């Protein structure tokens, strides 16, 4: 018996030792700096791909946000649009957009590396990081998709599906890449030292300005303004879905901002994650405070928009500012967003999602905040621009930031306005009023997003609208 026990123990020891031996044989022994660099590159690449997935997942956040703020009759069209935009955006950005943004060229636009055919040297705008080009592309295409998603938040519930598709090609293929090249691709604004770490201007302000151009030409939803021209609230149908969308976006932003380091090695990406999170929290508080001061209640939708506005604002500044400054930036963003949202509503621009206020004004404030709060240490570590106004940097950096906002915002607005104007003059931007009242799900896609019994449509042409069940009840009451 004793011999048997000894034999079993020896066998167990052998089994326990074998994987260790095997591992020791497979794992390269870290001996020199070159091997360490390889491991660092592998970790960085893993981080960039993971961050790309997080940013791509933000599309789910946009989908839920838009669905929540839409009426039931339009939810199918919202998700169809998101899917179509992902398809078009990815292919077009691969074909030309990436080359226009990061390819070698002049100070206005990249001219080399179409169809992702270039090597490290071709994409000079991204030469500062050693991760593979495929990882760089995955990350950057997710950014382009976010910018594209922002465009449509203001144009919900009344836009033709064809308009989405045609504009997506121009925006992802030309408009967004030009602005991206100016700031990130070695263009003229990067030569001035403009600070826009993860894209308050490139991604968010661009999307919002295109959205503003489209919305001005599109006009408000039917029923948005009363006889005297006063704005009426058209409530979304599902606030929990909208808040789920906000939270998905919030989580996705951990890919957006910290991912823009394109490196997991070093402390900066964790610091950036911290400033991002602090700003978002402060943004919720800022918007809630405004909501209480103005309406004496806590508007959940506005609280969500406050988080988004703050996240947008900290996107430019996340690598340049101290944690306390990120709280100030986020809080002010929440307040600005709420104020601008009320103003936008009053001047006749129907923005169902508040994208112009959250992404537009958030982007402008965030870009300017770099020129105020950027610390000398972080500016030196990042290697872009100069310290902000509060740290003795004077007005120089603030001026560069303002120039960037005017140039990029102006260019995107004019270019987008031209494209939307052409579309309006040829195929029209809006669906027919009849289709708008019935809902885009049935007119554009042939099915409802929800069960037909649940969906309320609007009054038109003498028939009462409302749910099918309500119509049946009314008919029965009339008959009896």
């Amino acid at each position, binding site marked *: 018996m004793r011999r048997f026990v000894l034999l079993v123990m020896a066998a167990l020891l052998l089994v326990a030792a074998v994987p260790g031996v095997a591992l020791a044989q497979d794992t390269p022994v870290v001996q020199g700096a070159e091997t360490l660099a390889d491991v660092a590159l592998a970790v960085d690449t893993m981080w960039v791909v993971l961050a790309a997935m997080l940013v791509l997942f933000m599309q789910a956040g946009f989908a839920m946000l838009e669905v929540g703020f839409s009426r039931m009759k339009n939810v199918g069209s919202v998700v169809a649009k998101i899917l179509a935009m992902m398809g078009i955006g990815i292919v077009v950005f691969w074909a030309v957009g990436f080359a226009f943004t990061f390819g070698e060229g002049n100070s206005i636009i990249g001219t080399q590396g179409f169809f992702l055919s270039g090597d490290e040297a071709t994409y000079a705008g991204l030469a500062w990081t050693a991760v593979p080009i495929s990882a760089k592309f995955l990350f950057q295409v997710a950014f382009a998709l976010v910018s594209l998603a922002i465009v449509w938040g203001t144009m919900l519930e009344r836009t033709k599906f064809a308009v989405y598709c045609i504009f997506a090609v121009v925006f992802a293929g030309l408009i967004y890449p030009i602005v991206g090249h100016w700031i990130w691709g070695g263009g003229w604004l990067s030569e001035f030292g403009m600070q826009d770490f993860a894209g308050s201007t490139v991604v968010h302000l661009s999307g919002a300005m295109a959205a503003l151009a489209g919305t001005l030409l599109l006009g408000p939803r039917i029923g948005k303004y009363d006889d005297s021209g006063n704005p*009426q609230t058209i409530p979304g149908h599902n606030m929990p879905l909208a808040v789920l969308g906000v939270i998905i976006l919030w989580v996705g932003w951990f890919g957006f901002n910290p991912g823009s380091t394109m490196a997991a090695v070093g402390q900066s990406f964790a610091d950036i994650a911290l400033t991002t999170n602090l700003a978002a929290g402060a943004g919720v508080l800022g918007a809630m405070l405004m909501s209480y001061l103005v309406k004496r209640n806590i508007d959940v939708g506005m609280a969500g928009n406050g988080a988004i506005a703050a996240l947008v604002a900290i996107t430019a500044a996340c690598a340049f500012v101290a944690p306390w400054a990120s709280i100030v930036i986020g809080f002010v963003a929440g307040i600005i967003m709420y104020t601008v949202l009320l103003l936008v509503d009053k001047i006749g621009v129907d923005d169902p999602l508040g994208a112009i206020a959250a992404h537009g004004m958030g982007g402008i404030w965030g870009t300017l905040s770099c020129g105020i709060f950027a610390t000398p240490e972080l500016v030196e570590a990042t290697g872009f621009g100069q310290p902000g106004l509060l740290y003795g940097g004077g007005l120089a950096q603030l001026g560069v930031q303002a120039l960037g906002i005017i140039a990029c915002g102006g260019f995107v607005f004019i270019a987008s306005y031209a494209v939307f104007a052409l579309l309006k*003059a*040829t195929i*029209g*931007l809006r669906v027919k*009023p009849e289709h708008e*009242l019935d809902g885009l799900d049935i007119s554009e896609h042939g099915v409802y997003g929800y069960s037909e019994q649940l969906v309320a449509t*609007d009054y038109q*042409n003498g028939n009462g609208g409302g749910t099918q069940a309500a119509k049946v009840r009314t008919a029965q009451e009339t008959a009896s």
Partner: protein
Amino acid sequence: MEQKLLAQGTGRNGVINVYPDRIELRTGWNNENADPVGLKQIAHVSIRGFVNCTLTLEVNDGRRILVEHMALPDARQVKTAIEDQKRKASLYE
């Protein structure tokens, strides 16, 4: 009985519907205010502009109805529908 809708267009916070015997301007909250004008009363229809078009309807009682900020294809469709209907019914002088 509901009449067949021949053409439709959206202007700035208002909708114009064309029926076989009339046009209907719907305005206000959820477009619930309907202002019908018989096709007989419409003297002339014109379109001005290329992007934000203005559809002008001149009515026999002296009114000029403007539907602003329309898309060109919609405005053209509405104009054509009104003119076709008037031609069919020989309502033009």
